């Protein structure tokens, strides 16, 4: 954690199309500024996020991963965000067992109207990952897809 000061983490975020992706778009339309460390992959539902994706992102060099979906009860597909939450909790235990700090992998609920909350979530995630430093537990060679 020596390079804490100038370390800019790289965070991969999985956002559901209906709530969180729309919320992130709203942050844009409202010109809310936030750190550029987060890069987004759009999925239709947070329930699509396979725990494998999270492991994969960490292996590929991401320092942190965010999964964000609709608030409980508001999933466009009724249950997807509950599935995501259940998987996330199991995965977090597993990652902790592997020595991955809990700050690295986060889950949040951001609705289509919460542009301001999106900024807060990003700041929280970025600061959390900055605290624990670069991810090098899973370093490996790149695959050629």
């Amino acid at each position, binding site marked *: 954690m020596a390079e804490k000061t100038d370390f800019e983490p790289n965070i991969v975020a999985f956002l559901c199309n209906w709530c969180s992706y729309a919320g992130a778009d709203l942050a*844009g339309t409202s010109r809310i500024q936030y750190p550029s460390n987060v890069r987004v992959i759009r999925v239709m539902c947070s329930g699509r996020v396979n725990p494998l994706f999270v492991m994969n992102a960490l292996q*590929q060099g991401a320092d942190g991963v965010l999964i964000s979906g609709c608030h409980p*009860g508001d999933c466009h597909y009724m249950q997807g965000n509950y599935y995501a939450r259940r998987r996330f909790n199991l995965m977090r235990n597993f990652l902790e067992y592997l020595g991955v700090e809990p700050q690295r992998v986060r889950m949040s609920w951001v609705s289509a109207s919460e542009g301001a909350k999106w900024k807060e979530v990003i700041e929280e995630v970025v600061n959390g990952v900055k605290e624990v430093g670069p991810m090098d537990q899973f370093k490996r060679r790149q695959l050629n*897809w």
Partner: protein
Amino acid sequence: MNGKPKIGVYVCHCGTNIAGTVNVEEVVQFAQTLPDVVVARNYSYMCSDPGQALITDDIANMGLNRVVVASCSPRMHEPTFRKTLLSGGLNPYFLEMANIREQCSWVHDDPIAATEKAKRVVEAAVVKARRLEALDVKEVDVEPSCLIIGAGIAGIQAALDIADAGFKVYLVEKSPTVGGHMAQLDKTFPTLDCSACILTPKMVDVANHPNIELMTYSQVEEIGGYIGNFDIKVRKRSRFVDMDKCTGCGDCASECRLAGRIPNEFDEGIGMRGAIYLPFPQAVPAKYTIDKENCLFLTKGKCGESPKCKDACKAGAINFDLQDEVVEFKVGTIIVATGYDVFDARLKPEYGYGVYDNVLTALEFERMVNASGPTGGKVVMLERGKKKKKKEGEEAEAPRVPQSVTFIQCVGSRDKSVGNEYCSRVCCMYTAKLAHLVKDKVGHDCEVTVFYMDVRAFGKGFEEFYDRVRREGVKYIRGNPSEIYKKGDKLIVRAEDTLTATPLEHETDMVVLSVGLCPRSDNREIIDLLKLSQSSDLFYLEAHPKLRPVDTASDGVYLAGVCQGPKDIPDAVAQAKGAASAAMIPMASGKVKVEAQTSVVNEQTCRGCGFCVELCPFTAIELVEINRMGWPVRVARVNEALCKGCGACAAACLSGSIQQRSFKDVQLLPQIQALGVK
């Protein structure tokens, strides 16, 4: 076409929206170095005609088979560019978008960081595009009928428009009558039309229209399916009155042992009714209803010797054995028009509502000034909760008439302390209207004062009306009262005149609180049925605040009226007409495209564990038996008409056998790599 990928990358400037922050030239140069990219260009507005022509020309001249557009959000223009591909002769699902506006140039002001991020996002789109596949766009038939939930003015108007166009409408209203809040009003601003005169004919029309099936005192219990083919279940609550036999004569109501003892919801509790009642004389349908929460016979099993209403009804319409009825039907589209609740004035205890008899809400006051309301349209001082101990033969004491009436605006609106930041848009004008009605009904010597923050007279004819009311002698004082208390038989309003910075104590007989419009307290019912989102003010969220104001995120579901946000009657009607025409588009075309990004099973590797079957929220997956190399095995199969493309199954399959089209593991993993690598 599925051969070696040949990708074109198009980076949009969006005027200066993108190019002002992101160095688009640099992004283009970077894109040219990516695998399988044969051309990369930038252009000022990709969504314009010449912008789209760049793509179609390149498809024709360079044989592109994949397209990446780096511009605004796919939620904005994915449909536009899919059409471009189609017109260029390419399957529309060979498109991938990179969002470098909403999620890049607009949120990062540092050009270097923004350009760096844009490159990453473009790279992720390119590596996904390499793996994209052509998808079939299927169409299904649309049921030519519409469900409308809520029969206020918005629901009524939408129902009439759709029914007039020749489609079937199921209009479901929770309360015993149609009309909603507009039926409670006396006059309407700014023209002072009589609300009943313009509304009642429409209420009668919806009841009689051959294409409208009206279900009052009913509730939607289940909604399944999807645009074009929704399956609806409605519970018609029992009124314990046979709708076919009831003539609406009202003989029963006057006989009810509880007559005049139960607060009438329609009169906001300032008028009374019995256990069997008609909410108001012009109610539609004009059929009586027994309220089973209060009826002696239904709660205690006994009403004196025999139920008096039943004895009184010559038509024999009263039947205590009637049960709720559940009906099921199919519709192609749904309009939500469930309206609002007024702000609960008890949440501002400093105004003493619920404590002082003559602190009223504006809706209570509407009932009071209404000629068919509980006081016959007379403005009188209230003695709430006091049992009228009128003895036989004794003349009732004439109620006192207030000498001064004071209005307080913005109660529960523009007020962070109660969590409502928004303006309710109607209170300024209805206050002006009610102030005028006081002058009109009580007389010009009745002193009328309005406390306000700002007067927002923005609509057609509003400013003129506000001027007129002031000329009639209504006094406007700028300042938000801090407290109301009682002194003798007067009410004292403590406030500060913020224009002159003088604190004042204003003495008055009656205070009317101009309560704002709030989301309904039972909103959750509809949200659970339809998965509607709410905006930060908790009204239902439209698909786009400007361009899709009547649509929702769910295809085939539209919004009308105040359920989407505060508005007056003309705006509610305009939106209802908009929702009606939006709902008629799929019904008129008769066909609608269904989700193409559905899941698909690799039957060679599926182990038939059935895990995905359990998981699918839409029961779109079933296990079927197939012949695999001579052996009968069970595998999962997706019903594409039911699959909504959430991908929950794909995330759970242990063998990776079920995959969501356009979001397959092999399409997402390269994206993860592109974004993960430093």
